């Protein structure tokens, strides 16, 4: 296992900020997944996305009808 020295969060010092860390080098690529795992992940995520809010409906509802008048 590759081990790094800790890095300070980049935004430390302010009360209302998210203090988010930055890796000293890019995170590593994971080994390739088995096809059945990839397919299961895609199916599960798609199902979850379909259970979520209807973003397209909300996006269309937010449009001002005046914009579409000729």
């Amino acid at each position, binding site marked *: 296992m590759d081990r790094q020295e800790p890095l300070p969060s980049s935004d430390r010092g302010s009360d209302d900020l998210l203090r*988010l860390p930055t890796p000293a080098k890019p995170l590593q690529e994971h080994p390739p997944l088995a096809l059945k795992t990839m397919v299961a*992940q895609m199916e599960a995520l798609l199902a979850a996305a379909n259970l979520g809010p209807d973003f397209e409906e909300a996006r269309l509802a937010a449009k001002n009808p005046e914009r579409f008048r000729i």
Partner: protein
Amino acid sequence: MPIYAAVCRALTEAGVPFVVIGGHAVVLHGHQRNTFDLDLLVAEVSLAPVRAALQGLGYRPYFESEAFLQLTAPSFLPPLDVMVVDERTFQQVVRSGESRVLDDEQILIPDAKRLIAMKLHALKAVTRARREQDWADIVGVIRATNQAIEDTELREIIDRYGPSGAFTELRQRLG
């Protein structure tokens, strides 16, 4: 067949609060794209129980720093990247988070603005790979959640967390 449920259940049973971030959160905000690594946000106080719970499922850490933990997955479980933040930051994300259902498990994702902040922050790192994916994610989330780039809070987030010129870059990409 559930693939995320085991991870969610193991963390919940261990009493570890977590937030799903990264590509999965992007998709769950309505921007469709492929993603396989499951990114989790946890508080630093939770790191030890997170590690124990995941190792109990067969995960093995292969890269670790104070703030990041990457684990290789056993068969038929998603690869995991865990980002560790201080408790206050974690609670900020939780307080503004949104609930979703993944594999019949209730999970939390950051609200769109906090997720955009994380993506912008990642873009500031000179070591960041997949920068185009980050920009595409930010644009996708802004569009999917109908954010106005001129919105005061979003503008502050872009200026605060993004790299130099991020607002101009985003305005161009949003057309």
